[in-house]
């Protein structure tokens, strides 16, 4: 094989690492999963899922940047900014197979590793380790979500801002400021002001 890996190979290697972090997985077991996974590519600013559509996929971002948002009163409220290695999809719509209230849209050109609802169900039936993998991944997502919500409740606007730019310095370069402000539930003006303050220091 060529020394320089294709982006897909890199993405699959990353996926293997990700899954192995939850459950010991041999390369051959991993290869049994591959037929269930689709690679999907999107240009930037493309809606992967529209409001009212039923979410057919669970996606892991192999490359690129995706946002999930709720339309509300002519506004968009961002509930997730997903980069490489993150799972992004309309969870409620996917699991209940009902029309989605949220919209999933690319910010950058994006490559997704996707598994459809049906494929995932098949995996749970056929692949003995899937049950444990699924449980541990959902535990992990649960913990992260709980901490995020806890932070939203407990921390001040300023604290949320500072913490975010400390832990996600690259995002300020990659994502329009208004998106980050929306995600952090901070007014764009306030966000600008805080950013200036930090620069001056």
């Amino acid at each position: 094989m060529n020394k320089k890996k294709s982006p897909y190979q890199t993405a699959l290697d990353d996926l293997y690492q990700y899954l192995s972090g939850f459950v010991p997985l041999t390369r051959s077991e991993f290869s049994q999963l591959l037929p269930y996974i689709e690679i999907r590519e999107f240009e930037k600013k493309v809606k992967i899922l529209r409001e009212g559509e039923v979410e057919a996929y669970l996606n892991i971002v192999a490359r690129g940047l995706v946002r999930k948002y709720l339309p509300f009163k002519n506004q968009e409220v961002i509930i997730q900014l997903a980069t490489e290695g993150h799972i992004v999809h309309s969870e409620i719509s996917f699991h209940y197979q009902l029309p989605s209230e949220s919209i999933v849209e690319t910010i950058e050109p994006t490559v997704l590793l996707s598994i459809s609802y049906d494929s995932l169900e098949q995996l749970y039936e056929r692949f003995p380790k899937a049950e444990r993998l699924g449980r541990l991944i959902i535990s992990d997502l649960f913990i992260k979500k709980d901490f995020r919500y806890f932070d939203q409740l407990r921390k001040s606007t300023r604290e949320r801002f500072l913490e975010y730019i400390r832990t996600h310095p690259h995002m300020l370069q990659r994502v329009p400021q208004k998106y980050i402000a929306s995600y952090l539930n901070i007014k764009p003006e306030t966000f600008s002001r805080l950013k200036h303050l930090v620069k001056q220091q």
Partner: protein
Amino acid sequence: MLDALRQYLSRYVPLSNEEFAFLADKLVIRNFDKKQQLVNVGEVETSLNFIVKGLLRKFFYRDKTEVITQIAREGEIISSSASFLSGTPSPYIVEAIEPATVFSISKKHLEKLYDSSPRIERAGRLILTHLFLQKEEWEQGRIRMDTRERFLHFVQNNPDLLQRVPQKYLASYLNMKPETFSRFKHLLYRRPPAEQHKASQTSLASPASQPPKASQASQSSKASHVSQASRSSKASQESQLSRPSAKSVNPPSGPGKK
């Protein structure tokens, strides 16, 4: 007492008598007095608790103020779940509002169950998924509902808690001032005479007849994939009870969820 737990689990995965007996064998019954804590801030949560009897709450302190994120009663799970799952110190306190009896299972025992029974592991995955989705619904509610909508949504889905839980707790849970809660409650109870006058503008009830997101959410709960194994009326009922929490402003979790 075990029946309620069995029913709860059967909404996710029907377990055989042997499987359930195996699980029941790992449970501990714990009793708590009113105001007694199950877990405190900074402790690692060691138990997952299923409420057999009583009423409990989960909260944290923002400065000196208590912020309630869950109120749970019989048939529901309460625990500092993220701490339980991650093994990190709990940012929450779990405390009994009324004297309470719970079935508890330790992490060690739960892992044993998962190791020995794929179906119990599946139940675990599906319950977790359900709780995870409730957090998502909660966030959508936080974004889309205003104070009055939160109040109405909660009251419609939890009439029992309105009687049972101290008002200041409910106000905290719904992220509103106690005075605001009190005013809404007043309006609610005065509705019939109010209709005879011209108070319909102030009546809380009229907007309640058309809560768009609420109906969508209940739809989602009813058709819940999670409860497909036995889509009993109980399942949808329970999901409905849990929704308000998902919809209210501050609680990442609430009645019907942990």
